[in-house]
């Protein structure tokens, strides 16, 4: 790890003795989870609780002529069968648009379809029963009469005048279009020695969380209060939206997120079936549980990617990249998701293409179209894998064309490490990136020259290996620029409250949430370090709108950078307050005292003066012994949001080394490297594992994962046998290295690390496959890279 401190003579709150910052410490929640004592939504059982099973449309697009539930109502255990029209009495529809995405449109979506279904899997009726099994039995007997309508399934023809318009009121199937033109693209391309074009195709895939989406909604009519237990990444957002559409005040809704079995952006949206569960609880005045099963997860959890992007790059013979141009098309299903919209991914693609490079010439068009497939929205590394694969694919094609090494062309074009602050051709502002340091480190880690020699030696033996490189930029720590400015009530600030309890331990309430990435750990590490208490004395409470400050939650790589800074600032205040009390008790001054290892000590010699537990005892039980005029405040709250930069960009570079069996088209991943720069590293193990997990998700997209739809809009592989998630057996070792450029926007200096792995993995693999296939003149720009695609490209089948 290479790290440079901006101002080494001043010790910050983080450099205190016994700091946990930069140390791998076990997560505080590990024992609980490892001993099976986690509490997931599925585990929650409430008195009088019932289960909802949804009758779902078998058609991609159809009119609902009638629903006959009479036989189903006679089934054992059935409490109620509710249609979309009936549910509309308690919940209003929504439209997933944001005002800063100019011209964006979408149609009103209901919790349960009324009159018309728009994708295979959309809920048509809710069967509420005493058990899930009874509900499923009854659901089979609900008879729905459909009249099939033309389904729009191919994004390429969605805008054709001959294609049916899914929502007549919108006039066409275009949800959003963005055009961007910077510099002098045409001139730059005309002056290039080579211009290379390619079309990049990305399969639709999804997040496949280990724990499916789940909710228990409990409307207490006596209190007029709804409690929602849900595995959400953004509890306050859920609170706001549930209240808005159920006609309640936010104070009437409490959202509780206990343990969450993976999210990856899947659980940061508002889903129709979850809204239906809230509404059913209000309608039936009792707790209602909905747990998606695996088939429902595939059919209704948001899908992502599914882009076709035409790209163009201009290059001079000396390797100078002159311009990038893209034309991106993506299909998002029949509704834009609520409230973050389904246009953000395409918008990000426009933002991010060409981002690591110097050239200012960049033209982009992105179009987002409706189709009769499951909804699409933001999934881990939103837009990044598309932008990175297009950019890095084009850069490699350019290098190949002019006969330049892929490392060399990047060295000649990446933005210099001393050129910051600066902006990208799409207008993104970079505070401090480290592309060249990262690339140099990667080259050392992988021993690039030795690998090239090995590749060449093996080729003589008919063994075809490839090296793929992918530089990337990553959006983290989003400010209100992401959603708030567009009118969504999604907070970009986070808050933390810390208090000293009566025995000298610390209780910390934070508005960020935990889905396995280590929010609880990083918060405890920061609080413990800044305050001077051991981590086992810090208890972190998160995921409860009644019991945490207001904030955004955990998504878009914001937990550590934003929530972590709030924890730091709140703890600094608490520390000062404690030292003020200690100074009064000890007849000293706060400046002469410090807290180390749970004890107030003298700064100069470290001599112990008073245990925190003793200080707390005096404050809480014998305040009468304190000098007059002292009112201790052993609780402190601080909030934080970045204001200077809309996003804290990070950067990095990945490399893949793999083997392509040219007889079978099978790819074997041999090794993967990542160097990334997330600023201050709070817990190296958590960062590295987050990077590795992200890489694996990217490798899944590169080689395996795809939601396969047929031409009628039927999802044909909605199960774990046919939808291939990456498994450990096929995964390579992943070496992770870091460059550290802290952001100066916060004292903590942390940027995010959640997207980096996913951002560049597929690009590195695709480039490596094309590198391996170079002797055969085959170039592939489509993922997943299946044996079928590779054999076809090689002309073997």
């Amino acid at each position: 790890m290479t790290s440079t401190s901006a101002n080494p003579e001043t010790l910050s709150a983080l450099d205190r003795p016994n700091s946990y910052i930069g140390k791998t410490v076990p997560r505080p929640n590990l024992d609980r989870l490892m001993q099976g004592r986690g509490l997931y939504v599925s585990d929650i059982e409430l008195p009088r609780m019932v289960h909802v099973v949804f009758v779902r449309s078998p058609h991609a697009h159809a009119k609902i002529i009638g629903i006959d539930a009479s036989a189903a109502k006679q089934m054992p255990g059935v409490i109620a069968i509710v249609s979309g029209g009936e549910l509309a009495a308690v919940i209003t529809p929504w439209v997933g648009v944001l005002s800063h995405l100019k011209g964006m449109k979408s149609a009103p979506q209901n919790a349960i379809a009324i009159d018309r279904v728009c994708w295979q899997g959309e809920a048509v009726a809710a069967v509420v029963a005493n058990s899930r099994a009874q509900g499923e039995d009854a659901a089979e007997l609900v008879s729905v009469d459909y009249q099939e309508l033309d389904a729009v399934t191919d994004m390429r023809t969605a805008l054709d005048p001959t294609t049916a318009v899914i929502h007549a009121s919108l006039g066409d199937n275009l949800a959003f279009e963005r055009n961007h033109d910077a510099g002098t693209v045409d001139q730059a391309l005309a002056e290039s020695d080579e211009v290379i074009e390619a079309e990049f195709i990305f399969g639709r895939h999804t997040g496949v969380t280990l724990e499916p989406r789940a909710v228990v909604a409990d409307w207490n009519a006596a209190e007029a209060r709804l409690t929602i237990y849900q595995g959400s990444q953004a509890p306050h957002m859920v609170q706001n939206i549930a209240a808005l559409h159920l006609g309640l005040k936010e104070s009437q809704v409490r959202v509780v997120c206990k343990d969450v079995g993976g999210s990856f952006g899947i659980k940061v949206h508002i889903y129709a079936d979850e809204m239906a569960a809230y509404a059913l609880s209000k309608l039936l005045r009792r707790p209602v549980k909905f747990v998606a099963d695996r088939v429902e997860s595939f059919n209704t959890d948001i899908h992502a990617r599914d882009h076709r992007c035409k790209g163009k790059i201009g290059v001079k013979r000396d390797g100078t990249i002159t311009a990038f141009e893209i034309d991106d098309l993506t299909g998002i299903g029949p509704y834009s998701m609520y409230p973050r919209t389904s246009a953000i991914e395409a918008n990000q693609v426009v933002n991010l293409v060409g981002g690591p490079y110097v050239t200012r010439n960049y033209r982009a068009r992105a179009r987002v179209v409706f189709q009769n497939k499951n909804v699409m929205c933001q999934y881990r590394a939103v837009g990044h894998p598309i932008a990175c694969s297009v950019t890095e694919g084009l850069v490699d094609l350019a290098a190949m064309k002019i006969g330049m090494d892929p490392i060399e062309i990047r060295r000649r074009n990446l933005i210099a490490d001393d050129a910051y602050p600066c902006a990208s051709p799409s207008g993104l502002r970079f505070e401090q990136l480290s592309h060249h340091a990262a690339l140099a480190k990667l080259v050392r880690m992988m021993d690039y020259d030795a690998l090239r020699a090995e590749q060449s030696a093996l080729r003589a033996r008919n063994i075809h290996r490839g090296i793929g490189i992918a530089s990337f930029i990553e959006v983290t720590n989003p400010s209100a620029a992401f959603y708030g400015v567009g009118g969504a009530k999604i907070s970009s600030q986070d808050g933390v409250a810390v208090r000293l309890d009566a025995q000298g331990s610390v209780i910390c309430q934070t508005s960020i949430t935990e889905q396995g990435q280590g929010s609880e750990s990083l918060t405890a590490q920061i609080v413990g370090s800044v305050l001077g208490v051991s981590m086992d004395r810090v208890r972190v409470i998160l995921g409860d709108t009644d019991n945490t400050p207001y904030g955004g939650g955990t998504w878009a790589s914001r937990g550590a950078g934003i929530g972590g800074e709030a924890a730091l600032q709140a703890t600094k205040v608490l520390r000062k307050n404690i030292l003020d009390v200690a100074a009064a008790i000890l007849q000293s001054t706060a400046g002469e005292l410090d807290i180390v290892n749970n004890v107030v000590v003298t700064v100069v010699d470290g001599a112990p003066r008073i245990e925190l537990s003793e200080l707390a005892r005096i404050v809480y039980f014998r305040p009468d012994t304190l000098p007059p005029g002292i009112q201790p405040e052993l609780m402190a709250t601080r909030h934080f949001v970045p204001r200077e930069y809309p996003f804290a960009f990070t950067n990095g570079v990945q490399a893949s080394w793999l083997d392509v069996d040219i007889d079978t088209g099978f790819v074997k991943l041999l090794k993967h490297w990542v160097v990334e720069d997330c600023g201050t590293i709070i817990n190296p193990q958590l960062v590295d594992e987050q990077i590795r997990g992200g890489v694996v998700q990217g490798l899944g997209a590169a080689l395996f994962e795809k939601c396969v739809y047929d031409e009628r809009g039927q999802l044909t592989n909605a199960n774990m046998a046919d939808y291939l998630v990456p498994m450990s057996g096929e995964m390579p070792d992943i070496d992770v290295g870091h460059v550290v450029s802290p952001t100066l926007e916060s004292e903590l200096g942390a940027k995010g690390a959640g997207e980096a792995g996913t951002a560049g993995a597929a690009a590195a693999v695709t480039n490596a496959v094309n590198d391996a296939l170079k002797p055969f003149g085959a170039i592939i720009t489509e993922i997943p890279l299946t044996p079928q695609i590779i054999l076809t490209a090689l002309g073997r089948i």
Partner: protein
Amino acid sequence: MKASAFDYARATSVAHALELLTAHGERAKVLAGGQSLLPAMNLRLMAPEFIVDIGELAELRGVTVKGDVLTIGALTRHADLLKSPEIAAHAPLLRDAVAHVAHPAIRNRGTIGGSLAQADPASELPACMLALDATIIARGPRGERRIAADEFFAGIYETALAPQELLIAVELPVQPKDSTHYFHEFARRHGDYAIVGLAAQALVRDGRFADLRLGFFAVGDRPLLARSAGELIDVAVTPAVLAEASSALDEELSPLEDQQATPAMRRHLAKVLLMRCVSSLLSRPDLCTGVSA
């Protein structure tokens, strides 16, 4: 994802199981390891009215060698096959094949009888039965039947078993000491159903095949004992001979299309497998270069 309601009985003996099957026949399904049946029921792809659980019938579990016959009880689990010294000594092909069957959790529950009776054309063990010239023992209301492996598999999920019959065991000839074998499958991920696979058993003497049995799987609606193997027996195998065997194999295949592969890709991969198998069994790397479609 809950199974529909069904009736259930746990058989206490083979005779009891047969009584239950006689009584419930077509309505019933036999539950052995449950690794195919239960997922299908939970997905409501199948809704048998009656489940006959034979899981407790210890008499059906185990591997024995008598003379030159290796007998494997129907309830012998994949994990048992993997560990069995008798299998390793007398039918090592089976051990190699089982390592490709799904994952440890599934191998701990899944049984050989269950896999054969399920007759998934993409699964490993049916093809091994062909390569190993197995005899499948079934018992029904009218007594015991011995069915040759190449007559047992009748199509996708279809076998020669009658609804009232129970698969009891398989018998394999003990392989000669100088017998060799080859097993490989192409699957997207380790443990997945194969796109194409090959289980082969051979006798190689003086650099020639004295015998060669090629059991292909996932190349049609049932495992295939390739007749084209005959072209390679008792001849000096040259690239030309191999190429001819390869085109003869092509004519025997009737591969299906699914999400992993087109029929053309399956044909191609089957021929790659043939080439690699022959090259490996004869220790002739020269035969493996320049594979083409």
